[in-house]
C-alpha cells in the first residue's frame, strides 16, 4: 500500500510537470502580449516606458530563460503578479477564488451524486414498468442538454420571471455596504463550519455502526446528527460573531442555490444511468436470490443488498466527474457570474493575463490530480476484491 501510494505520488508529480510545461508553452504562444495590448495603443506612453515595463516583467528575455525563471519561481511558490490587475499578486487572487469554486463544486457533487444514486436505484428496480422510458429520456435530455443555454433558461425562469432567486453573482452589494466583515471572512467561516459539522456527523455515524443492538445504534446516530446540526445553527444564531454574520452568510447561501440546482439537474442523470446499469448487473447475482428467498422485504433487498454492491462502479465514476464538473464549473461560473476559478480562467485567457492563466490552470490541474488519486484510494478501501499492488 505504501509503495503504491509512493509510486502514484511520483507519477503524479511527473504528470503535473508535463502538464505545467505544456500549459506554459501553450500560453507563451498566445498572440499579442498584454504589455503591447495595454501600452502600445496608448499614445501617451512613450516606447521607452513600454520597454521598461517589458524589462521589469522579464518579458524581454529569450523564451527558454523565461521558462526556466517561471519554473524556478513556481516551485518556490512565487506565482508572480497578475498583468491585468497589476500589482496584485496572483496567489492573492487564487486564494480568494479557490474556496468559492471548491464550495460550489463540493455542494453540487454531493447533491447530484445523492440524487442520481437514489433515482438510479428506483429505475433499476422498476425495469420494464411504466415510467422507465419517461425517466430515462427525461434524465438523458437533462444530461445532454446544451448547458449554457439551460443555465440561461434557469436564470430567466427563477430569477427574472418568478423572482425567487438572485440573478447570479456571489452576493448582493446593496446588503453588504455597511457590512462589518469582508465577504471572504464570512464565506470562509461558513466553509469551515460546514466542513467540520459534516465531518462530525460522518464520524458519529461511523462510531454508531460499531454498536451491536439496533435501537441504541439508531438512537446514537440520530442524537449525534441532531446535536451537530443544533451546534451548527446555534453558532449562527447565538454565537457572538455568528449572530452578526448571519444575514451576510445567508445572502451568500442564497446566491449559491441556483448554480447548485442547475449543476445538479444537469449532472444527476449520468449517475442515475450508471447506478441503473450497475444495479442491473448486481441483481443477477446469486446473493440477491438468496436474500429474496430468505423472505426479506423488497426495499431491504434493494437498499441493503443490491444498492451497496452497485455503489462501487458509481464511486469510480467520480474520477471522470472531476474533469466534467470543472468543465461544467467554467460554464456555470461564466453564466451565473460566480467569481471562482473557472471565471478567472476564462477571463485571464481571453484578456491575455498569462501569469494568472498559468497559475489558475495549474491549480485546476492539481485539483483534478488530487481528486483522481483520492478516488482511486477510496475505491481500493471500499472494494476488498481490488488489491492495490505495486503494479496497479
Amino acid at each position, binding site marked *: 500500500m505504501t509503495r503504491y501510494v509512493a509510486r502514484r505520488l511520483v*507519477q503524479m508529480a511527473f*504528470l503535473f510537470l*508535463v*502538464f505545467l510545461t505544456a*500549459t506554459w508553452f*501553450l*500560453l507563451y*504562444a*498566445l*498572440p499579442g502580449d498584454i504589455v503591447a495590448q495595454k501600452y502600445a495603443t496608448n499614445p501617451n506612453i512613450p516606447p521607452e516606458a513600454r520597454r521598461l515595463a517589458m524589462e521589469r516583467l522579464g518579458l524581454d528575455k529569450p523564451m527558454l530563460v523565461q521558462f526556466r525563471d517561471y519554473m524556478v519561481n513556481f516551485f518556490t511558490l512565487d506565482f508572480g503578479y497578475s498583468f491585468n490587475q497589476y500589482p496584485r499578486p496572483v496567489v492573492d487572487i487564487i486564494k480568494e477564488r479557490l474556496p468559492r469554486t471548491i464550495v460550489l463544486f463540493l455542494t453540487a457533487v454531493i447533491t447530484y451524486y445523492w440524487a442520481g444514486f437514489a433515482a438510479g436505484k428506483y429505475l433499476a428496480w422498476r*425495469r*420494464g414498468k411504466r415510467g422507465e*422510458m419517461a425517466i*430515462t*429520456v427525461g434524465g*438523458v*435530455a437533462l*444530461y*445532454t*442538454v*446544451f*448547458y*449554457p*443555454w*439551460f443555465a*440561461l*433558461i434557469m*436564470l*430567466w425562469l427563477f430569477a*427574472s*420571471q418568478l423572482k425567487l432567486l438572485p440573478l447570479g453573482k456571489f452576493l448582493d452589494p446593496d446588503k453588504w455596504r455597511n457590512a462589518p466583515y469582508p465577504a471572504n471572512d464570512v464565506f470562509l467561516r461558513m466553509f469551515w463550519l460546514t466542513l467540520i459539522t459534516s465531518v462530525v456527523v460522518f464520524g458519529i455515524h461511523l462510531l454508531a455502526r460499531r454498536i451491536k443492538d439496533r435501537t441504541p445504534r439508531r438512537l446514537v446516530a440520530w442524537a449525534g446528527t441532531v446535536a451537530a446540526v443544533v451546534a451548527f445553527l446555534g453558532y449562527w444564531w447565538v454565537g457572538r460573531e455568528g449572530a452578526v454574520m448571519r444575514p451576510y452568510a445567508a445572502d451568500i447561501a442564497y446566491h449559491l442555490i441556483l448554480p447548485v440546482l442547475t449543476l445538479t439537474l444537469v449532472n444527476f442523470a449520468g449517475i442515475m*444511468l450508471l447506478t441503473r*446499469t*450497475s444495479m*442491473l*448487473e448486481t441483481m*443477477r447475482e446469486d446473493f440477491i436470490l438468496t436474500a429474496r428467498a430468505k423472505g426479506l422485504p423488497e426495499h431491504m433487498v434493494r437498499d441493503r443488498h443490491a444498492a451497496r454492491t452497485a455503489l462501487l*462502479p458509481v464511486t469510480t465514476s467520480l*474520477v*471522470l466527474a*472531476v*474533469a*466534467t464538473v*470543472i*468543465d461544467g464549473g*467554467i*460554464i456555470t461560473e*461564466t453564466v451565473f457570474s460566480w467569481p471562482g476559478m*473557472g471565471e478567472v*480562467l*476564462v477571463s485571464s*485567457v*481571453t484578456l491575455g493575463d498569462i501569469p494568472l*492563466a498559468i497559475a489558475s*490552470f495549474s491549480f*485546476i*490541474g492539481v485539483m*483534478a*490530480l488530487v481528486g*483522481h488519486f483520492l478516488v482511486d484510494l477510496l475505491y481500493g478501501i471500499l472494494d476488498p476484491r481490488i488489491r492495490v499492488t505495486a503494479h496497479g
Partner: protein
Amino acid sequence: MTDTSERTDQLEGQTLAEIGADESIELAEQAQRRQSLWAIRWILFRRSLRHNWALFWENRIGRFGLGIIAFFAVLAVMPTIFFATGYWNPAIYDPVTGLEPNPPVQRFTVVNEITDPATQIDFTRVLLDNRIPNDVLPGDVVEIPLQPAPPDSRHWLGTDPLGRDVMSQLMHGARAAFFLGMLAAVVTVVIATIVGSVSAYFGGAIDAFFMRLADLLIMIPALAVLIVIGAIFEFQLWHLAVVIGILSGFGGTAIVLKSQALAVKVKPYIDAARVAGGSNTHIIVSHVIPNVMPLSFLYMMFTVTGAIQSEATLSFLGLLNVRTSWGLMLQLANNQGYLLQGLQYWWLLFPAGVAVTLLAMAFFLVGRAMDEVVNPRLRKR
C-alpha cells in the same frame, strides 16, 4: 459507462452465440464449397448484423434515438433540395448572407414624450436611427422594419436580429453538427482502437506510456483546454473535430478499449495465430481489432454527443470560427440580449438550444441501446 473489465468474456462468448454458432458454421461450410473466403465472411457479417439489429430494435429507447437522428439527417439534407429546386432563393435564405428584403413593418407615431410604448417612438431616438429618414418631425408616423420577425409562411421559424432565416440556419447547423460529430467520432475511434489494441498486446513500456498519457488527458478539463487553444488559434470546425478526437481518442476511450483488448489477448485463438506464424501486426489487425470493434462503435456514439456539445459551447463563448452552427445562433441571440427576454422571442431561444440538446441526446440514447446489445449482462433475457 459500464464496467468493461467484467463484460469482456461475455462479449466474446456472445459474438459466437449471436452468429448462431452451429447454424452459421454449417452455412459457412456450404458456402465454402462454392464460394470464396470473403463471401463467407460477408455472410457471417450479415447474419450477426441482422441478429444485433433485431436486438437493438427491441429497445424502445434506442428506436427513439434513431428516430431523432433520422429527423435531423432529413433536416440537414433539405436546404440542398430547396436551393436546387428554386423553392428557396439564396439571396434571402442563405444562412449567413441571406436577408429578408421585405420584413413586416410596425407603425410608430413620433412623439417627444412616450405614453404608449407599443405605438409611439421617441423623437430623439428617431434622429439617431439610420433605418428612418431623418426629416421626420414629432407627430409623423414612421414605419420601422421588424427584425427579428416572428414566424410566418415565408420564414417558418422567423428571422434573426440580422434578418436571416432561422429555419435555414437550423438546417445548416444540423449539417455542421453531423459533420463535426462524425469526424470527431471517427478520429477518436481510429486512435483509441489502435492505441488500446497495441498497448494491450505489447504491454510493458508502450502500455505504461499510453496509459499515463490517457491519465493526463482525463485529468485535464477538456473545455478549459479548448478555450485556451481557441483563444490562440483561428479555430475552424474540422480543427475542433480533430482536437476533440485526439483528446478523447488518447484519453478515456483508449483506456476502455484497452481493457477490452486485454481480454481478447488471452484468448486461445491469439496463441493459435502466433503458433501458426502470424506476425504481431497480423494478429493485431485481423484478430484483436475486429473483436474490439463492437465496443469502438459504442464509444463513437458517446463521442458524437460530446463533440456536438463542445462545439455549441465554444461557439456560444465566441471562440470558434465557423460559418453557421447552433451555438453561433444562440451566441448572436444572447449577445443582442434576446435570450433573457424569455418567451417573447421564442424562435430565437428554442430552435437552436433544443436542436443541440435533442441531437446530443439521440446519439447518447443510441449508444445506451447499443450498450445493451454489446453487453449481454444488461439484457432482459
